[in-house]
């Protein structure tokens, strides 16, 4: 029991809750059975439901309290200790955050020393700053960046004290909640108690929690991007970002950071990808749903969908090593090439990335279109055949017009994937930001620039790094808009036939 109350890690606490839940299960079940004299038919619910109810009332409040405490305590301790550090204790050119880092390490060092038995807990609390302290701590395996001055030591001691008290309080609250839970559940476990309904409620709450976590995460992502974007626009004029004409980041502080050349590259590559994917995907879908026999369909459809399972980095390699050099062979190399022209110099180009991305999107377009074409009622086809139309006339004039809204939705979804695609363009499109109509030139996209701005040494206070968030948010808004539009169109179409 002692270790459970003083432990700073949560493992013994969780083990304790789990054991208590197990015990609660057995006891509540037995108690419910005894209340009817061993006749389970006279219970409101099956005996196991009383057990599950006990498990729920032990674990849910205790784990909830533990989770909240784990989130709140560090924030609370950090802000209280930060107030203790006087302004003069912060050296020139440093920040209070860096000082706090030392405070935390010193507190950790003291903890380690106490745990190793070098000093007692009371000694750690009463320690005063001496010249030998830093050396002595280094011998214990704790390296401190600067000199240990009395303010930092006092802060570290306070930090350690508050954490110790916090842990004890936390453990006490969690253990009491768990015990209260088991007692309450045991008191409730009698024949009339509707344990089954309570468990049903618990399951519903669990499912709601899962659904809202997904939504809250999206919200969190958007908000974090939004704050960083606001930071970026504090450092960099928004007019340059949205209306400027060039993308030339440098770390001297006078970068041109305009989204327009990147947006052009993104849209150009996506357009080529769609020009490849939409006809091929749509024709494949028409063949599979209207012409192919059941045997062909059963083999061809999964084969086509294998394409969708290939990781995009593999497509990127395909672009870089196969498609790019092939295009250079065709459009470049002067007399040595197929066409005898010298229009293309490097393997990376808009066309390379667009073609490969188009191949990636084929299964996406075809499987969505296939579903939509299959949803067109057979009665329309019968009506057309009954008037003496051939199969292709029927498809062209009746099936496709009926499926058109859904197909448009599928194309928009494919477009939003193309815009957000990263790995193929990182490897296949090149890294030069420019606005040009020549598809054989290398260009770059929003996603590639986000990758390159954030890889390597990044200082999250410069506009050159923060621009990644503005780019990401723009991308998010763009694809979100396309998805909403696509879903709206698809849904409107679905209403027509169901």
């Amino acid at each position, binding site marked *: 029991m002692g270790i459970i109350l003083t432990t700073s890690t949560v493992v013994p606490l969780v083990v304790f809750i789990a054991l208590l839940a197990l015990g609660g299960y057995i006891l509540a079940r037995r108690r419910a059975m005894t209340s009817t004299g061993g006749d389970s038919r006279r219970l409101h619910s099956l005996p196991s439901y009383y057990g599950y109810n006990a498990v729920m009332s032990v674990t849910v409040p205790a784990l909830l309290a533990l989770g909240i405490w784990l989130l709140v305590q560090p924030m609370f301790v950090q802000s209280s200790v930060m107030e203790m550090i006087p302004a003069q204790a912060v050296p020139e050119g440093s920040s209070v955050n860096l000082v706090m880092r030392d405070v935390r390490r010193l507190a950790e060092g003291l903890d380690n020393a106490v745990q190793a038995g070098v000093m007692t807990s009371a000694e750690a609390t009463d320690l005063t700053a001496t010249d030998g302290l830093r050396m002595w701590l280094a011998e214990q395996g704790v390296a401190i960046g600067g000199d240990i001055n009395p303010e930092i030591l006092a802060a570290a001691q306070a930090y350690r004290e508050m954490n110790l008290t916090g842990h004890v309080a936390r453990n006490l609250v969690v253990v009491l909640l768990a015990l209260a839970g088991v007692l309450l559940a045991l008191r409730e476990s009698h024949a009339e108690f509707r344990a089954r309904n309570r468990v049903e409620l618990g399951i519903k709450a669990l499912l709601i929690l899962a659904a809202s976590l997904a939504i809250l995460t999206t919200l969190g992502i958007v908000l974090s991007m939004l704050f960083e974007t606001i930071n970026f626009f504090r450092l960099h004029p928004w007019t340059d970002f949205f209306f400027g004409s060039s993308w030339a980041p440098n770390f001297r502080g006078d970068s041109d950071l305009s989204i327009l050349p990147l947006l052009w590259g993104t849209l150009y590559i996506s357009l080529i990808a769609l020009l490849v994917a939409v006809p091929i995907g749509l024709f494949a879908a028409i063949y599979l749903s209207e012409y192919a*026999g*059941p045997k062909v369909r059963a083999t061809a459809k999964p084969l086509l969908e294998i394409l969708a399972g290939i990781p995009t980095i593999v497509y990127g390699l395909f672009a870089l090593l196969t498609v790019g050099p092939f295009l250079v062979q065709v459009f470049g190399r002067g007399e040595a090439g197929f066409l005898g022209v010298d229009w293309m110099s490097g393997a990376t180009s808009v066309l390379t990335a667009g073609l490969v991305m188009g191949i990636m999107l084929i299964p996406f377009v075809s499987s969505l279109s296939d579903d939509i074409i299959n949803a067109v*009622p057979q*009665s*329309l*086809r*019968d*009506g*057309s*055949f*009954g*008037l*003496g*139309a*051939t199969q292709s*006339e029927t498809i062209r*004039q*009746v099936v496709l*017009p*009926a499926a058109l809204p859904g197909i448009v939705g599928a194309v928009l979804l494919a477009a939003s994937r193309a815009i957000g695609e990263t790995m193929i363009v990182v490897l296949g499109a090149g890294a030069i930001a420019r606005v040009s109509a020549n598809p054989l030139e290398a260009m770059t996209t929003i996603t590639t620039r986000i990758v390159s701005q954030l890889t390597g040494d990044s200082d999250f206070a410069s506009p050159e790094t923060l621009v990644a968030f503005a780019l990401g948010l723009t991308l998010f808004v763009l694809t979100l808009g396309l998805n909403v539009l696509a879903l709206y169109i698809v849904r409107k179409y679905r209403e*027509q036939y169901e």
Partner: protein
Amino acid sequence: MKDTQTLEHNVTRHPVKIAARDVQVYYGDSQAIQDVNIDINDKTVTAFIGPSGCGKSTFLRCINRMNDTIDVARVTGDIRIDGEDIYDKRVDPVQLRAKVGMVFQKPNPFPKSIYDNVAYGPRIHGLARNKSDLDDIVERALRRGAIWDEVKDRLHAAGTGLSGGQQQRLCIARAVATEPEVLLMDEPCSALDPIATAQVEELIDELRQNYSVVIVTHSMQQAARVSQKTAFFHLGNLVEFGDTDDIFTRPQDPRTESYITGRIG
């Protein structure tokens, strides 16, 4: 609704339009209809009645080779329209279906305008020389479909926006626009309310002036009201075929009698 008595049950014999001999239809391994022999007259309404699954719709779909669109269906025997074997290799099923129009159980207007729905067949088969010719064909078909007055002011509105009865009459107009010689109707009123049913039945009676009409129906009252000849199908067999009045008043086969009196169904 029209009273049965006011419909003239014309017993004068028109020439045979459709002649079927020993027709068998298989769906995969199971036989759907067997040994059907029937002569269907021109300018007559012939009703096919019988319990569900008896093969009446299957046989109807043989007459314009709609069963060709079902992979597993196989038809043997001999069906002739005006003496020509429609299952002959030289016959193009697509051309045949222009000559043998079909109206389906559920109204199935295309998601196009009313005008384009009716103009669909004539356009495919190149029946109109120019725009005004096509306009005439569409108007004539809509008049024959007894729906012209209701839609003449909104020919370019969507066909799917009409009421159920109007949609079915539009589908009939669409079928007659290609100038067929035979009109097949597969339970054309089963999705309609009584008023729309009465309108369509009246229309079927008028269509008899120009076409040989074959109608599959579940309603014996409907068969009695609109048809001159009735065929009773049971378990894939054509049990009895004769003048409608005779079938409903003096059935020869005990199975027919059981069915029309409601004992098997």
